[in-house]
């Protein structure tokens, strides 16, 4: 189970300190037909949720209380227990440096806020198809 993508629906854990954004992401995830396992409101709780659920995809906000999305991303990439997990970073920072920092930390994709739920959902659906 660990490190492998299940044959079924990709399972997702999301982390963002803003409840409205969290809700927006969860709607997009559900509309894309993915399975939402857990939501976390800060980096540390997100880490616990990830250890608990071992999802196929982690959607992480960069700026969070406690551990930031970037730190969590590095932690996941350094931990063999999470091998093969997909990571999407969301950030309100706009410049290319923020994107570069995200990719460098090991993220598969980087979305700048504000993001369009439609486009985000399309990307998630594509992920589903690819994983299938």
């Amino acid at each position: 189970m660990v490190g492998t993508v299940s044959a079924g629906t990709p399972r997702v854990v999301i982390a963002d300190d803003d409840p409205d954004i969290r809700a927006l992401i969860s709607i997009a995830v559900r509309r894309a037909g993915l399975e939402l396992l857990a939501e976390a409101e800060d980096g540390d709780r997100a880490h616990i949720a990830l250890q608990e659920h071992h999802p196929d995809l982690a959607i992480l906000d960069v700026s969070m209380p406690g551990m930031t999305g970037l730190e969590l991303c590095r932690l996941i990439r350094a931990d063999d227990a999470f091998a093969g997990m997909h990571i999407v970073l969301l950030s309100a920072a706009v410049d290319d440096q923020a994107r570069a920092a995200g990719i460098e930390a090991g993220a598969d994709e980087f979305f700048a806020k504000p993001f369009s739920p439609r486009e985000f959902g399309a990307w998630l659906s594509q992920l589903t198809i690819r994983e299938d």
Partner: protein
Amino acid sequence: MRRSIFSLIRRLSVDTPSPALKQLPTFVAFAIALLLAVLLPSVVITLPVAVFRGSVIMILATLLSLYFARLRRVTRWSLLVPGFSLLAIALLRNGTGGTTSLFSVLIILPVVWIAAEKGRRWVVVAIIGTSAAIMFPYFANWDLPANAGEWIRGVFTPFVYGVAAAIINELSRQARHQLASIQRLAREREVRLKETLSLAEQLQENQQRLHAADRFTRSVLDAVTEQSVIGTDLRGLIDVWNPGAAMMLGLPASETQGKRHIFEFHSGDELENRSRELNYPPGATVLNPGFSALVESARLGIAEVRDWTYVRSDGSSVSVAVAVTPRVDEEDVTVGYIFVATDVTQALEVARLKDEFVGLISHELRTPLSSILGYLELMRDDNEAPLSEEQLQYLSVAERNAHRLLRLVGDLLFTAQVASGKFPLDISQIALNDVVAGAVESARPAGSAAGVELILYVPEESIAVRGDALRLGQACDNLISNAIKFTPQGGTVTVSLESTDVDAIITVRDTGMGIPESELDQLYARFFRASTATRNAVPGVGLGLTITKAIVIAHGGQLDVESEEGVGTAFSLSLPLPRRP
């Protein structure tokens, strides 16, 4: 004895220029002789008339000497005095027994005077004078010496006197010469003394000035407590350590001067990194390689302020900006270095806080906007409960304004980045034709909504520059949207691209309300709005041109404006073309 004779001669002939004093001995001797002639019965006055005439002439001669004495300057005419004296003595002699007179010896006195006069010819004059005085009794009686003995007396005596006169002349010449030398030496000595004195004065003055300068330097060094001023020799050994350095690094001067090296107070890692950057191979120089790296700019004569980290004796560190300059001696040879360091901990902290604040604001503003825009989109896309046409229209208004707010936040963040000198540019080779055309295309909806015609002139051949396509597009967008905003319905906005040998020029020309000339130079100030803009209620906050200008400057380009109120405005944005190979 000899000395007294010399001094007498000197006094009478050389030292004393007063003819009256020279005449005095002759006069006194004459007077005594006269007294003797009158008082002593053994002295017979044979010719009282001659004696009387002689006395009168002697008095006249003495009066004449007094006259010459009163003259300020020395004149040869004063020799008339001994001349007359000789005549007076000759008459006295003639009157007291003629050739047998006892007073022949008086002749010597005026003769000495004459003979001592400067010049050999006066010896001859003295001899002739003597001879004339001795032979006078014969001349007075229209007679000639009767026998050889008398001839000899008339010639031999003057000859002896002449020899004496010659000796006197020579002696006085020597005396005069010696005196002149002594006087010259004395004058020279005086001049030297004066020179020496003035030199000594100058020296003292210079010394005082030097002391003053030294005191000034010391007090400046002592007064500088916010900066550390450290002086070293060529190898980095510290010899100047001001109170600022003591305060910053926590050690008194007594513990560093002559004992510690400057590089001991630097972060070792930093010095090592810098040495590596400058390609100092380890151990290749006699100097500590870190020190070489430290003084690199000063050694090359480049004025440079570089950020370093000082390490205090207790191990704590302080961020400093250090200016290194060479110390030179009087021949301009470098003998050491001076390190002036300013504590920048606070400045760095302020800059960090500012960056943090900008980031925070940006994040805090963008997060709610993300929610607004996201949920608006969800509403629009809700297929289960589709919105009415009217509701969709309301929704687009909300979306448009949310986007406007988002742009504003982006602009604010960008201006803050420009102000703090952090300005990320993604440079690549780009075709300006596409950038300009893209900007015009995206402005078309706004143009038609405002009833302004948009005209585009782009050359067929591609004009390529090195730049950030996104930022340059933003600059064009700003200029074009400004032009549309400031142009009334029915006007035109013309966007053209052309190139010269060195520049690519984008011009955005409108037929709008124009900008008053007095406001043209404030145009690029943050939050500045032209009076025509506020008067005509054109929306905006005054960041567009600031950002545009910053983008253009960052590309090494230039932004110019021409405007006439009521006629229109033209902005031209020029960018340097890459040099042709």
